[in-house]
């Protein structure tokens, strides 16, 4: 369990993280989403005590990270694929970390096996590709077999096979009852990996919800109706209160009306219907919409919260 309460980090006159509160629960993968520069990395660094918050607190398992007696056993962190000394071998990098926490050296070989780096264990990490660096970072996070995992953009630089591996690994780790917080700016990736989402924009919380509810809450949901009487139908739908766009042929896009209402309007109008369906926006689209709001409203300081409430009430 990770608990953030009012986390705030100010750089000069920029509020990189602004009164951010959320809870990450065990047993599911929680995606930490936001555009680049939203404050994801800073938040993660504050959670594990690398950066000092200007306000607020972060607790892991009920206490600040700094107070954990064997931190690597409690929390596994992978914040940067280029965080190992390039002159040291993968094995020795992990051995030094293991020794500091009194973790048996045999565990080093184990985690190297888990991430698939056994064969290059005795090679200096300076020669590693970005993907191998990610694997080494994940190995370091797994070293203490921790109940909480915090990973910052772990799939960056991985090939498709590597991305699939990380995805399955994270799901597996969560299924064992671990708390998994993973950041990404790739919404499509999170749609496949995460069950829960914490979305931030400009350092503020935009949504804290399930992936399902997040997509559901998007106001972008529209109804597509295809009819040879499209022009006639369009006027009736507008009269019923819908916002309608016509593709010029037989297709109409309707927002502001339910699928049932659209069907009823079509029946009442005597229009032949070839197709009628609700178009679910992808996570990508829901996210774009949400963060566009946060950018639009950022000039005034209060409305971002309104956006959040709007989405929560919609959920």
């Amino acid at each position: 369990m990770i608990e953030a309460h009012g986390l705030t980090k100010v750089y000069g006159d920029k509020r990189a993280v602004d009164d951010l509160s959320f809870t990450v629960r065990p047993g599911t993968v929680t995606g930490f989403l936001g555009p680049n520069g939203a404050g994801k990395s800073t938040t993660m660094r504050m959670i594990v005590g690398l950066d000092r918050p200007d306000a607020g607190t972060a607790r892991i398992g009920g206490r600040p990270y700094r107070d954990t007696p064997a931190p690597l056993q409690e929390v596994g962190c992978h914040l940067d694929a280029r965080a190992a000394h390039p002159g040291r071998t993968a094995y020795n990098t992990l051995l030094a970390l293991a020794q500091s926490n009194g973790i048996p050296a045999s565990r080093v070989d184990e985690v190297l096996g888990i991430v698939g780096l056994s064969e290059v264990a005795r090679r200096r990490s300076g020669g590693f590709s970005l993907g191998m660096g990610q694997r080494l970072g994940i190995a370091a996070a797994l070293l203490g077999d921790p109940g909480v995992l915090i990973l910052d953009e772990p799939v960056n630089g991985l090939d498709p096979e590597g991305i699939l591996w990380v995805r399955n690994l994270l799901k597996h780790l969560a299924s064992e009852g671990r708390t998994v917080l993973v950041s990404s700016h790739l919404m499509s990736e999170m749609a496949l990996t995460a069950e829960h989402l914490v979305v931030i924009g400009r350092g503020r919380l935009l949504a804290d919800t399930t992936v399902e509810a997040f997509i559901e809450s998007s106001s972008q949901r529209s109804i597509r109706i295809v009819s040879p009487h499209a022009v006639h139908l369009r006027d009736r739908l507008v009269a019923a209160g819908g916002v309608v766009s016509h593709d010029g042929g037989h297709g109409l896009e309707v927002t502001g009306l339910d699928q049932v209402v659209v069907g009823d309007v079509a029946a009442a109008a005597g229009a032949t219907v070839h197709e009628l369906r609700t178009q679910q926006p992808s996570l990508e689209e829901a996210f774009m919409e949400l963060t566009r709001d946060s950018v639009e409203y950022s000039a005034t300081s209060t409305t971002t919260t309104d956006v959040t409430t709007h989405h929560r009430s919609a959920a």
Partner: protein
Amino acid sequence: MSTVTPTAPDTVRPYLSPVRAKGVSFPRALQSEWTKLRTLRSTWTTLATAVLLMVGVAVLVSSVVVSQWDTTDPLSRALFEPLSVALAGTTFAAIAIAAFGVLTITGEYATGAIRGSLLAVPRRTPVLLAKAVLLAVVTYVSMLIATLASFAASTAILSGKGLDASLGDPGVLRVLLGTPAYLAVVALLGLGIGAILRSTPAGITSLIGVLLVLPPLAGLLPGKIGETASHWLPSAAGQQVTLVTPDPGGLAPWLGLGVMAAYAVVLLAAAAVMLRRRDA
């Protein structure tokens, strides 16, 4: 809060690991830092460079002295001091050791490895303290070897003209044991400056400035103030122990080394406070 609760969080049993971690302690921090120090090639190349510089300069200068002895004027002969010839390379070794001390910490900042170190030991101070202990021990041992090897090589060459010093001569043993101690303190100053500046070039430049540039500048201060100031500078104070005939106006040899060590302690204490307070 969200109206949709995530999948039954209360029923999830938190993960319990079969791996047994004993937890962070200072001896474990020492063990970890020793692994880091010994597994970097730069550690051994830097130390080897320092040893070779000392022995190489000793051999070179001793050979020149011997070859020119017959034509050397009486005054220079009277002032000749065999140990200063044997340890003529100390200044060069000090530069290599200064870089060694600085790099021990700035190398971690440059590569980002510092974050892993501080995540593993979040109270942070043990990391710096362990580095300091290891740096002092490793530098002392390796530079004791370098000092004794330089003395042996120089003695072998100088004995051809009967110019060699003996271990029993006054001050010789003190210099042979004190010179590596002076170099160990140089390494600690490097660690302190490196931890505060967090940059390899800035750290090395600053330390060399303090050791080599500051002394002549202090001498420019007017009268008694300049003289006193220059005696209390870290390098002048520490170097007294490396001289068979210390500067009579300066601090006593071991006191001087103590003063230099005090500078290092103050610097490391400041570095520890900053390490705990600053974002990593």
